[in-house]
């Protein structure tokens, strides 16, 4: 059975004016053992999509449609208690800022023990057993002096060490699905590579599935098996990372890839900016910025197109996608 299956997800944020339609019909599947890269720019809905899976959309936000199936169980039908039992144990989260994810008043070891205890693993288990598991986990995230790290308060750790501790927290209950939202954005490039190597190794080793939310196409090309590109609340292209990077089809994906400076190639500068999510056009949301726009694009919703044999799909009026 598919580990995660999101179908027709819609999320709105209401205010005094027209509601902001942050997610407008997202379908997403994740299997065990794969890392899916969810790519998009700010406001594309990638973070809202991941928070929806975690059941963390709060007022004024609201899921208005769709289902989120974890091993066939729709998380939207569960109550707060059931969701709390699932979060951390079956679905866990690695946020962008490790500082925000760690309690500044508790030692790292205590925080890890609390996670175990709050999911019923304390109880009769001796303290020594809890200790053993935290040491094992902190070693597994590549911290060479585990005793010292477990005794440390978050502010005593460097950014890279703190993010390792957050990953340890996210993995200690051996979740089936890990959602990481820009897990290396605040880190230096040499540390970024360490953390991503470690993250993908842990995910594979534990046989979990992962959703890696990022704006960085370099990360997706190097660490993800599949990619989903979001624009204005919709996935506009998805497929195996190899197929999409070798022959991107959606004009937005093509533009995004060409916006990364590479020596000896002209830099492509995409005109304009993302549309207002309170007033989305009836047709394709990218039409106003698209270099390959057709007369029908602005008014008629684009259809899904399949690239034969590759599980590669894109949402566009152009039959073969943007020419390269």
């Amino acid at each position: 059975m598919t580990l995660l299956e999101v179908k027709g997800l819609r999320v709105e944020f209401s205010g005094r004016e027209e509601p902001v339609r942050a997610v407008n019909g997202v379908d997403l599947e994740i299997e065990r053992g794969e890392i899916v890269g969810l790519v998009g720019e700010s406001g594309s809905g990638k973070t809202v999509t991941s928070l929806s899976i975690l059941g963390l959309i709060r007022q004024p936000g609201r899921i208005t449609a769709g289902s989120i199936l974890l091993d066939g169980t729709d998380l939207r039908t569960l109550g707060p208690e059931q969701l709390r039992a699932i979060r951390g144990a079956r679905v866990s989260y690695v946020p962008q800022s490790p500082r925000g994810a760690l309690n500044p008043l508790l030692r790292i070891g205590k925080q890890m023990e609390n996670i175990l205890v709050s999911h019923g693993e304390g109880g009769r288990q001796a303290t020594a057993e809890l200790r053993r598991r935290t040491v094992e986990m902190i070693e597994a995230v590549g911290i060479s002096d585990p005793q010292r790290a477990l005794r440390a308060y978050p502010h005593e750790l460097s950014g890279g060490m703190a993010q390792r501790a957050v990953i340890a927290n996210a993995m200690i209950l051996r979740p089936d699905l890990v959602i990481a939202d820009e897990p290396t954005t605040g880190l230096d490039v040499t540390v970024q590579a360490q953390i991503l190597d470690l993250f993908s190794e842990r995910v594979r080793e534990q046989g979990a599935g992962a959703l890696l939310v990022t704006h960085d196409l370099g990360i997706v090309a190097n660490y993800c098996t599949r990619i989903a590109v979001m624009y204005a609340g919709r996935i506009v292209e998805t497929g195996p990372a190899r197929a999409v990077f070798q022959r991107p089809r959606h004009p937005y994906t093509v533009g995004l890839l060409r916006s990364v400076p590479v020596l000896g190639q002209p830099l492509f500068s995409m005109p304009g900016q993302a549309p207002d999510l309170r007033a989305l056009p009836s047709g394709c949301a990218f039409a106003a910025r698209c270099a390959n726009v057709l007369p029908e694009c602005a008014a008629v919703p684009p259809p899904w197109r399949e690239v034969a044999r590759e599980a590669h799909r894109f949402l566009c009026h152009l039959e073969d996608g943007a020419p390269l």
Partner: protein
Amino acid sequence: MSVLLEVAGLTKRFPVRGGAVHAVSDVSFTIEEGESLGLVGESGSGKTTTGRCILRLVEPTAGTVRFRGRDITALGRRDLRAARADMQVVFQEPYESLNPRMTVHQIVEEHLLLHRPELSKADRAAQVAELLDKVSLRSEHGRRRPHELSGGQQQRVGIARAIATDPAFLVLDEPTSSLDVSVRAQILELLLGLQRDLGLSYLFISHDLSTIQYSCTRVAVMYLGRIVEVGPTREVFEEPRHPYTRALLSALLRPDVDQSVSRIQLEGEIPSAITLPPGCAFASRCPVAIGACVEAVPELRRVAGDAQRAACLRAEEIPALMATPGPG
């Protein structure tokens, strides 16, 4: 070409309890008229402090900064203010660097009021309109306030303000880092276009090697307050002579599924700038360090070609010792 900016022995220490943060130590480089020098490094490497010391937004502890031969560090307040008409800065966070109470027109006009008091109101308005046009903003943007603009538009305002007094030199401090990928390319193109049209020189500070590779003819790599390698971008990126430059280049993740770079895995992170290690600051993480590395700070010396210099005792052996990262 003639030298526009000459930085020599620039040093900045911030006093803290029990010592000092050695943010910048003995940094020297030159920038020629119309040239872009890229300054790369990770957080804490001292690249931002270097840029700020040059403009004296932060007072350097030691060293000289000569702009067209005149020592900026020796100027009094009035002369410094006048000199800043010629040397300006674009900040990383456009929103935080713009006064939220002022309109775009007022923000861009402010530098003209300060540096060109002789202009009439009508002339100033005409100049502001021209500046907005140069950064591809429409005249109605002038009436808006920063929060009404997108991140890319805010950065355009920051750039219009920086070029208002017709400067020769700009410090660009991560000008595209906080922007979305597609907007980054727009702003980078704008900066490169302005450089061509106005003959500007840039100190382009960035942690993003692709951006530097694309926009700068020369590059200096900083680690823990010192320049460890400097030279023509092409040569430094193709055959780096400092182990840190190699590691940095090999950690660069390109949007390419066939990237076949053997990554140089560095242990640990950048050490504290309060208690500097003796000798080479990179030695604690360096995969090819030898005993002599911790004895004295290695000199930044010529190692290849005319202009490529590296601060490494083993610079000559580095290409043989470490796998070639190569620029993709």
